[in-house]
């Protein structure tokens, strides 16, 4: 029996000690009327057979394509040591560190993660993670709702549409008003946002760089929000945060991010990492686990889960959130990634990605009929307008093993001819050259 180690003799002894004569007697409480009507599952297979089956499935996915897909989820290089270290059984097979004396490894790592993330985003506190970047925005918004006791949320349409759908779903039953302020040619419309944020607003939510790749300075917006008593929530791209004006500098109250770019593989959508940070003032509104430093009975430094009075296992329905399991091992990956690259390495990743994207933009806009959606500054991702349907361009190039980007019409009405193109440090000039040639060929 896989993973059940008892011999027949041991099973007999154990049943005898328990005082039952058969396994099924242990389930006497489950009456006959409650037993399964069917349990028509495949037979168990050996490890060898299952691995062969899973390898066949993996082979059905085509990953040796050159892809310019991004849209918030990026294919950065992951140093091998990230896997080596985070896969160690002592990290991977531990539970949530409820027994701190036997969990200092996990606890110190989370503490270090909180520190690194706080410094990267220039915020005062971070939690130990939530599920993903989208749920982090929801939780951030709710912090604003709790802190202000207001119900109106102002959201930029240049916030990832994926996350905006998530927010709409999550808030359905909460009696909140979600106001979406349209983007302007792929730019976040700061003036319109300022106009929309008033003294009934709980929080304003923006993204930097935004979904179209454009970076902004939101200082004025956040100043305005503070003046009218609203909270400022910003979602960022951690890699670009090595360069861009920080949430802290802009005066954000809560800054969140999808942490996938910090050492998580794309893995068809997860597991990823919801990063949450806030000002010290807001920390008691923050959901999720938080680790604090303290001392043991001998005065030695140690780490514990703290501020647990916010959490569901203590507060039940009065908790700040229902989050229990989080993405701890992903947070560890992010910490190891940041440690391995250091500030210099991470900045170089950001710059290489930006450089590749600008080269791509230059090459693509040299194709007659292709233009940038906006001439505002962008980082490693940009939107172009094509003379043909972006869907069609994507479909036709994809057939040839080349995914030129994401068709914006998927989420934005009116942008059916627009394509969102992302680069990372993994792209080469050759990749970009082929992209430009293929696209040029299609359009001609």
């Amino acid at each position, binding site marked *: 029996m896989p*993973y059940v180690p008892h011999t027949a003799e041991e099973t007999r002894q154990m049943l005898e000690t328990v005082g039952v004569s058969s396994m099924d007697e242990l389930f006497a409480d489950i009456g006959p009327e409650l037993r399964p009507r069917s349990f028509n599952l495949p037979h168990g297979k050996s490890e060898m057979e299952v691995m062969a089956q899973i390898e066949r499935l993996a082979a059905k996915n085509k990953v040796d394509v050159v892809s310019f897909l991004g849209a918030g*989820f990026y294919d950065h290089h992951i140093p091998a040591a990230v896997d080596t*270290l985070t896969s160690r059984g002592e990290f991977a097979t531990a539970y949530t560190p409820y027994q701190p004396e036997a969990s*200092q490894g996990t606890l110190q790592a989370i503490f270090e993660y909180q520190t690194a993330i*706080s410094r990267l985003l220039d915020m005062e506190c971070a939690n130990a993670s939530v599920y993903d970047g989208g749920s982090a925005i929801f939780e951030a918004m709710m912090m604003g709702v709790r802190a202000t006791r207001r119900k109106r949320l102002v959201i930029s349409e240049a916030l990832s549409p994926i996350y905006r759908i998530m927010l709409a779903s999550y808030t359905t039953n909460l009696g909140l008003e979600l106001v979406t302020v349209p983007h302007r040619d792929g730019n976040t419309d700061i003036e319109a946002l300022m106009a929309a944020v008033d003294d009934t607003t709980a929080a304003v939510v923006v993204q930097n760089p935004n979904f179209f790749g454009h970076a902004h300075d939101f200082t004025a917006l956040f100043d305005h929000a503070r003046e009218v008593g609203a909270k400022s929530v910003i979602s960022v791209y951690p890699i670009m945060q090595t360069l861009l004006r920080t949430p802290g500098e802009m005066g954000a109250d809560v800054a969140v991010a999808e942490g996938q770019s910090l050492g998580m593989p794309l893995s068809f959508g997860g597991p990823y990492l919801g990063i949450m940070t806030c000002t010290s003032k807001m920390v008691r509104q923050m959901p999720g686990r938080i680790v604090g430093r303290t001392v043991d009975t001998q005065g030695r430094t140690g780490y514990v889960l703290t501020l647990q009075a916010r*959490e569901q296992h203590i507060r039940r329905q009065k908790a700040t959130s229902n989050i229990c399991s989080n993405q701890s091992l992903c947070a560890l990956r992010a910490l190891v990634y940041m440690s391995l690259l250091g*500030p210099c390495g991470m900045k170089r990743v950001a710059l290489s990605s930006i450089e590749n994207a600008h080269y791509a933009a230059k090459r693509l806009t040299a194709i007659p009929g292709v233009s940038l959606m906006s001439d505002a500054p962008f980082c490693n991702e940009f939107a172009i307008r094509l003379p043909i349907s972006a869907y069609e361009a994507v479909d036709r190039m994809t057939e040839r093993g080349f995914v030129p980007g994401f068709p914006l019409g998927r989420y934005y009405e009116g942008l059916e001819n627009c394509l969102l193109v992302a680069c990372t440090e993994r792209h080469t000039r050759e990749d970009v050259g082929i992209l430009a040639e293929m696209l040029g060929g299609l359009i001609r």
Partner: protein
Amino acid sequence: MKTLFAKSTPGRRGVCIAEPACCEADHLPAELLRSHAPKLPELGELDVVRHFTQLSSLNYGVDGNFYPLGSCTMKYNPKFMEQAAALPGFTRLHPLMAQLKGAGHFTQGALEVMYEMENLLCEITGMAAYTMHPMAGAHGELTGAMIIAAYHADKGNRKTKVIVPDSAHGTNPASAHIAGFEIVSIESRDGMVDPAALKEALDDEVAAVMLTCPNTLGLFERHLPEIVEMVHGVDALLYYDGANMNAIMGKMRVGDVGFDVVHWNLHKTLATPHGGGGPGSGPVGVCEKLKPFLPVSRVKKLEDGRFVLDYDHPKSIGYMAPFYGNFGVYLKAYAYVLRLGGEGLTRASENAVLAANYIRKRLEEHIHVPYNRICMHEFVSSAVGEDLNGVRALDLGKALLDKGYHAPTVYFPLIVPECLMIEPTETESKATLDAFVDDLIDILELSKTDPDNVKTAPHTLPVTRLDETRAARQMVLTDDV
């Protein structure tokens, strides 16, 4: 141990990245740039490897230590599942690839995993359909509660309350609350949901009852058929908290007995590692009538055998995750189900229950067992009695750490004083179970003769007991303070 930041030296570089051809000023105006570099650790690659290798040695994990942590199902995490999830054919797959028509055939393997896993979970639990999107158990609860809300809204029902027994996991009321419900708590009786109390609480405003079965005392809810009838009688839905699923696989299908919604904790029952806190995966199954409300996308098999994502479900609650949930986690769980098969899953539950009962029987004369009858996959004991000289549940747990075991869950459920909740799982050998029992008995004996020794445990770990009050008061949450 020094932190990474204390070990950092300005200017040191780890993994070298080629110097880019550009600088930030080439592409971004100054007002968009940060004024100072983030103070991230600057370490050599070996320093980083050594730091985390050493840090890891401060942890207990299932791979190194018996972990009888009640309610957490800390079973063995088979290593081949990690190899499966690390295949580049999965790890390198961009989730949006599946949403491009032309690239849909690039993701057929991944979509097949989703589709097949949904079907397997349906068959194990007798539900009509599953979503793999929820990213943890509590996220599954939230998803389930939102589906319940959507169902009642669609029917035009005005239902504002969810009933949660006092023995439930704290996430139950928290999740239902975040889905917009008011929580009604009912008191247990004899370790069971009290049908009378339930009946009293059940009115037309009740949208659902959330049940844990076996409950958090490790006992099967004997009044289950009655409860199902009562709940359905007021047009409420019955929710199954799957945290304790490891007790019943092959013995009961929650769909067959009348549960309308169920979530799994794949990182418990289906053996994916807990990772020091996550990531998990919390798929949700529903009965036929709730299918229209499941989150989108749904994976669909076409007649020609191809798999596609289907977003055309107007009554859907929408997106619970950016894409398709923690794919890398449920891929492992899928491999686990294939490995065990139906018989293996049944044997897992049987042996989990056997192990819990074996420990219970071996301990019953040494520590108070409040509900001392056949339990399911876990049971609770209670560190009460004068001969313990004031040694508390927490102390026993700490003393177990010294013996190389992780402590059982302590002080949960709240309804048992000085509670120690023990869940051995099916993957521990009899030798380990016996050694654990013997060591716990030794500690109980020591409590009689030298209680201070137990009260000051652990003595052999990297730290002794930590000052939690100070942590909460002084709030040192980063290395900057």
